[in-house]
């Protein structure tokens, strides 16, 4: 694989520019999502949300970020210093890797790898690990409990996530993002595989620790879950990583189920593919935020029961039925 690397200057320039753009985009996106969340929360609760700083409160996140940076970085007395510092950095790595393979547009994939889909899921285990390390390194009972619950939840919901994605991969016969999106030119997969789409979205909510599955970091349980002891910019890093994770998960849902960069039924109305992709992703993100202020929090044992007793059999059944239909038709 190493000997097949192209050595032309244009190739490397494109790679580096793509990486820089993606890094900037992920940070801007996280800032925007924090503002969006507060606005959505405000309007659902019949109030306005941030309005003071900038037009309609758009600069609120930046001001909050500056405030966070200025806060004192407290390390608990008997915390494991190295691990405590590593955890927020580790939680960011899968996020940045995943951006390499997302299909923003027909020509806008940085590296269209043969196993691109698998890359995102393989690297998401690092964020799970980072939560565990952060919770343990805090030397705090509540942080540790929150971390253990978060890991149990992530592991339990990862299985139906992968199984539902496998149903789509079976239909397309490829892990490559460009092929997965190209196969949806006429009909989006959400119409062909509604069960898989639903299961994927539920599991994505659980994987990113969003309500109604946000026991590990809820404000009214366990103090603040696994990031109880984190202050200042370290907390900010966990926060940013969570929002970027949300974006990646919704972007994957767009590529797998909602047609990626295609317009409806193949008509793009002369709008470039990247605009369609981002529009669909942000609609899904809005739905994700909508969930938070609509559903009450699920109790932990209900959460685990739901995954192991309902979602896994359902997604396995879906996979078997997909395979049978593909073979017999």
């Amino acid at each position: 694989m190493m000997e097949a690397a192209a050595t032309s200057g244009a190739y490397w320039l494109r790679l580096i520019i793509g990486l820089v753009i993606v890094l900037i985009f992920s940070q801007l996106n996280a800032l925007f999502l924090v503002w969006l969340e507060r606005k959505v929360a405000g309007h659902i609760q019949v109030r306005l949300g941030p309005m003071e700083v900038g037009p309609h409160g758009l600069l609120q996140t930046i001001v909050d970020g500056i405030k966070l940076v200025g806060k004192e970085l407290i390390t608990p007395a008997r915390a494991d210093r190295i691990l405590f510092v590593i955890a927020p950095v580790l939680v960011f790595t899968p996020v940045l890797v995943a951006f390499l393979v997302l299909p923003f547009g027909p020509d806008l994939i940085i590296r269209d790898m043969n196993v691109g889909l698998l890359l995102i899921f393989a690297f998401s285990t690092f964020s799970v690990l980072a939560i565990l390390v952060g919770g343990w390194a805090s030397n705090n009972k509540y942080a540790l409990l929150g971390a253990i619950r978060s890991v149990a939840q992530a592991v339990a919901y990862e299985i139906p996530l992968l199984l539902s994605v496998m149903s789509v991969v079976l239909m397309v016969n490829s892990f490559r993002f460009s092929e997965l999106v190209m196969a949806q030119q006429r009909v989006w997969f959400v119409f062909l595989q509604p069960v898989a789409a639903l299961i994927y979205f539920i599991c994505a909510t659980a994987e990113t620790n969003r309500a109604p599955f946000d026991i590990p970091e809820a404000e009214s349980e366990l103090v603040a879950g696994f990031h109880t002891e984190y202050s200042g910019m370290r907390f900010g890093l966990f926060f940013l990583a969570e929002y970027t994770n949300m974006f990646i998960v919704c972007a994957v849902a767009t590529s797998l189920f909602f047609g990626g960069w295609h317009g409806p039924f193949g008509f793009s109305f002369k709008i470039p593919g990247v605009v369609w992709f981002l529009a669909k992703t942000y609609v899904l993100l809005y739905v994700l935020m909508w969930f938070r202020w609509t559903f009450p929090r699920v109790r932990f044992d209900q959460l685990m029961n739901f995954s192991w007793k309902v979602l896994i059999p359902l997604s396995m059944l879906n996979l078997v039925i997909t395979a049978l239909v593909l073979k017999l038709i």
Partner: protein
Amino acid sequence: MSGSFVIDSLAHAVFWVVVGIVFAGAALAVFPRNIVYNVLGLILCLTGVAALFLYLGSFFLALMQLLIYVGAICIAIVFAIMLSRPLHLEVPKRRMPKLAAGIGAASIFFAAIGAVAWKTAWKPAAERGADWTITTIGHLLLTRYALVFEVISLVLLVAIIGAILTTGFSRRLSS
């Protein structure tokens, strides 16, 4: 081409960094007495091995290593650590005879394997295929190596049932 030379030497340098990561992770997994450091060392080592799989040409296997080993096995080990709380385990002194015997056994083994590895004239097979795609792996798993597939499914099934039974029994016994 000078561009190719830069890329090759960069790849070479990164290869030795990855080997260093593997060794550092393995050392962290074996030597310290703190079990949490051991697990984190194992995770570092396994990630390094995944990168080595990438150098050996199989991207798919590198991702599988991350998914299965780091994502499942190591997290299960961390769970077992959290549930059994050995963090306050008593730390008895290392006795010299045991340490010497351990080092002796490991180094004898390493010398033997090393001698076999370096002295043998390894001959590449006459006809070497070039098909590294996962389509081929899947196809072979279902046709020529179907027994491997079935056996591993059976082993995993037995392991799941055994694990459930073992923890179920002990809970009934201790309650």
